């Protein structure tokens, strides 16, 4: 299973890439594998400022649906249009083309609560 070293993770199987004040968020390789074929990703919170652990969207797969939770507090500045038109790229490239939203980080100290690659690896076994 692919768990890149340079990313942060949540127990809800999301990943976070931090670049300055901006965090890019997606779901992990483990998550896409568990969900199976993804049919669409719904994010209707663009422009909203949400708290950590609030729902910012959902992922519908053939078999099941899963909420997307904010790993950190911040403003959703962008939703990946590619994911909206070609949801299968989340299955194919969860850490790359399959990213979901960009967030302007409200409080960088929250980043310390996220898991590193090793801790996430332990979580998913």
């Amino acid at each position, binding site marked *: 299973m692919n768990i890149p070293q340079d990313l942060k993770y949540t127990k809800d199987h999301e990943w976070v890439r931090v670049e300055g004040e901006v965090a890019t968020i997606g779901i992990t390789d483990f998550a896409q594998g568990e969900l*199976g074929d993804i049919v669409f990703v719904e994010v209707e919170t663009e422009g909203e400022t949400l708290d950590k652990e609030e729902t910012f969207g959902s992922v519908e797969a053939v078999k099941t649906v899963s909420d997307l939770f904010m790993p950190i507090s911040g403003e959703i500045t962008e939703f990946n249009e590619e994911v909206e038109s070609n949801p299968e790229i989340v299955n194919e490239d969860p850490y790359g083309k399959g990213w979901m939203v960009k967030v302007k980080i409200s409080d960088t100290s929250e980043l310390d609560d996220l898991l590193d690659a090793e801790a996430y690896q332990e979580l998913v076994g």
Partner: protein
Amino acid sequence: MKKLVLDQVHQDLGGKMVDFAGYNMPVQYEGLNAEHLHVRSKVGVFDVSHMGEFFVSGEGALDFLQKTTSNDVAKLSPGKIQYSCMPNDKGGIVDDLLVYCLGENDYLLVVNASNIDKDFAWLDQHRPNTVTLDNQSEAWSLFAVQGPRAVQALQSLTDINLAEMTYYTFERGAFAGAEEVIVSATGYTGAGGFEIYVKNEDAAAVWKAIFEAGAAEDIRPIGLGARDTLRLEKGFCLYGNDIDDTTSPLEAGLGWITKFNKDFINSENLKKQKEEGISRRLNGFMMLDRGIPRHGYRILNAEGEEIGVVTSGTQSPSLGKAIGLGYIAKGYNAEGTEIFIEVRNKQLKAVVTKPPFVK
């Protein structure tokens, strides 16, 4: 949790294993959509050995099955199969099943894995002493070879003329070196094909032989996930989702297997229900707005009033559209009726559509 004879084989094939009806079952291998489309276009194999097999024999076996199942068992002759259900005495369904006529007063019942214990207890309770009820579920494996290329994939393994077998018939004989095999022209996919019943001791060899013989047809293993989407595209009921101990066979659209020319458990009440009319019916529907219906979601009318509940739903891999089944109140059952599905606090538009969704 119980294991299939081929548990390790599935894991070696990359099968993702999940608990289903107490069995560790492969839910998918390469991916649900790819597996689904492969069965529709070519041929695939499902290991559905979790299904239950009961042998019913002895004097009075026919009468016993006439009483406990809703379809007319007297219509069967050796080699013929019938889809049926076992009504309970409270208006619902104990299970749906296949009835195989092996000979005079000699039958095989194939029941859902999740209901094996319940079905056995129910049948045993109504069984006369002259009838033997033998639960052989643990002794048999079952491979469903489904898809338009099934005949070509399997013919080299048997002398039975597969192309000549008609739907809902079976043959007993040698298959892939195994002596005691039941080859049944049935399935749960609507894609054509066969269900192969083999003794557990022959399961590994027969599975291997099927893949060798079918290699030229690109035969592939298929998981339970695709089995569910394939059956839903055809509008086939799934026990525990669309039918259960509380749903009437008439409400479920199973009137065609509920025969009132004979007496069976609860037939008087069901007959009355038929005469008086049902207040809800299992309907198919197709989503118009983007969203996927799931079991338990509410069905609403344009005014937002609850008129029913979703029992099955998925994104149809063949159509690229979301489809579902659900019980809908009288008055909203006609094809083309606009309904709304409450998907995660949103009311999404859908339209009543008569299955099969995929012809």
